[in-house]
């Protein structure tokens, strides 16, 4: 496969993985928890590095999952002790992220882990970092990580589809019919942490947020059906990756930044033009209504 094809594949995998998971969070009004977790996994990655002294995929996934779930637990704990939820999110993620950034500056220059990399990612280098077993190369590590996490997330979503759906739209009803609501909550938080750390190398901690929230919010403006929204959100994530890569090549700028901007462009277009929830459609409907009223009164 050519270099461009690998980048597009990796970008699309980030878009689909984050898009599908993020759509659920948007529906559950937990978009900012996604923001928080994608900041704090940095701490998990740094701690995993201190323990294993390597940037190996699996320990990083575990470290990120632990800190990700810890973030959710801490926010929940502060929330239930009476701190308003957005302030709780704010204090938890800024503390853990700051700790991660400070710890990272103790790591030597010879290790491929620094703050800029953590923020912006280095998708341009990922195709060369290949998985080598017994001397045979099996393609970029990022593809295997992202593919694995995508498969993991999809399996969980399909297995618990009904439970996720009910606990999202009607938590009270879900509890009353015995759905393990807390389990679903922390399962989703784990999925977010996994998606974040797998995407980390390619788009960086902060731009993961764009892929987690914006495609989901866009899909929310396009459909009223849960399953459809997940599919659309994943598709929009992948589309953003393509569009973003094109823009990055054209203007010679950051690839991950362009992908985030691309999600914003698609969101803006949808915000204006969505057939049901778009500004133009709403304006036309209002106009029509006015005309009909005038006809009636005339």
């Amino acid at each position: 496969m050519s270099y461009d094809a690998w980048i597009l594949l990796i970008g699309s995998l980030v878009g689909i993985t984050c898009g599908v998971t993020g759509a659920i969070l948007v529906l559950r009004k937990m978009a900012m928890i996604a923001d928080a977790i994608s900041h704090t996994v940095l701490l998990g990655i740094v701690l995993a590095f201190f323990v294993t002294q390597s940037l190996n995929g699996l320990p990083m996934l575990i470290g990120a999952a632990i800190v990700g779930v810890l973030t959710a637990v801490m926010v929940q704990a502060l929330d239930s002790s009476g701190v308003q939820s957005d302030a709780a999110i704010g204090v938890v993620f800024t503390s853990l992220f700051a700790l991660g950034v400070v710890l990272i500056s103790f790591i030597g220059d010879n290790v491929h882990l620094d703050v800029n990399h953590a923020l912006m990612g280095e998708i341009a280098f990922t195709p060369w970092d290949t998985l080598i077993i017994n001397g045979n190369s099996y393609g970029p590590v990022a593809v295997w990580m992202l593919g694995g996490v995508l498969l993991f997330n999809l399996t969980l979503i399909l297995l618990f589809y009904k439970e996720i759906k009910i606990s999202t739209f009607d938590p009270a009803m879900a509890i009353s019919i015995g759905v393990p609501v807390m389990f679903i909550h922390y399962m989703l938080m784990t999925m977010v942490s996994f998606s974040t750390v797998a995407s980390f190398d390619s788009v960086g901690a902060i731009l993961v947020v764009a892929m987690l929230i914006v495609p989901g919010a866009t899909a929310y403006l396009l459909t009223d059906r849960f399953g459809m929204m997940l599919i659309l959100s994943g598709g929009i994530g992948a589309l953003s990756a393509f569009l973003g890569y094109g823009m990055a090549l054209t203007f010679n700028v950051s690839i991950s930044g362009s992908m985030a901007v691309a999600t914003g462009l698609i969101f803006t277009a949808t915000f204006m033009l969505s057939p049901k929830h778009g500004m133009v459609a709403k304006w036309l409907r209002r106009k029509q209504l006015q005309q009909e009223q005038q006809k009636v009164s005339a």
Partner: protein
Amino acid sequence: MENLLYLLSNANTQWVLMGSLILGFASGVIGSFVLLKKQSLIGDAMAHATLPGVCLAFLVIGEKSTPIFLIGAAVTGLISTYLIQAIVKHSRIKTDAAIGVVLSVSFGLGIVLLTYITQNTSGDKSGIDEFIFGQAASMVRSDIQVIAVGSVVILLVSTLFFKELKVSIFDPLYAKGIGLPVNLLNGVLMALVVGIVVVGIQMVGVVLIAALLITPPLAARYWTDQLGRMSFLAGIIGALSGVFGTLISTIGNGLPTGPLIVLCASVIFLISLLLGTRKGLITKVVRHA
């Protein structure tokens, strides 16, 4: 220790410490209002959105100039709050997702502009990327003056309108009833928040400046119920965090200033959470026992 004394006698360090003290105090005070208004994360979005503003300002004038950078930052910061409100008002997207959309896309745009500047323009562009995490060590006296003057003005305005702001946040209906311009006061508070974010990004950085608005007031909340005392206490906590964070960053040669200031605030928050006289966890247990 000698090293520390040497640093403290350095004029530039003294200036920077003074700046971080005033900035920390002002942000604690303003943050108390923001906390009561439940808009903590809007400050975060605004802070991220200042990055493209700084970059655009550089692209327009083509050289480093702190005042112009800060004007650019203020403009895009304000636009971002407007966009969040517009998205919530004109669509069915909820506030948290709207904040997330604006925050992440504008930060992405900032990164794009940053790479465009480093790759496609000439001239001195060093220091622009320090806006991301803040670097007190590289600040010069004029930068500190901007911070000090900005913070003092912000403090003055908030003290002057303290009562009005308080009433309009706690009870907007009553405030309207007694003839207060509630919308205007909301605008004033927004402007104060933008002000803090803008003067603070050089020292603390766009990614974490929101913490200075969130953490000190939250810590102060564990010691008192009264807004006046709370905002004063939050100011003190903010000032302490500012001074200690900057000090550690200066001693630790190149450790990023912003994250250290935030960590200091987090430690004070943790202490308050446990020991606070109002609602501290340990205090509660002791009282029940």
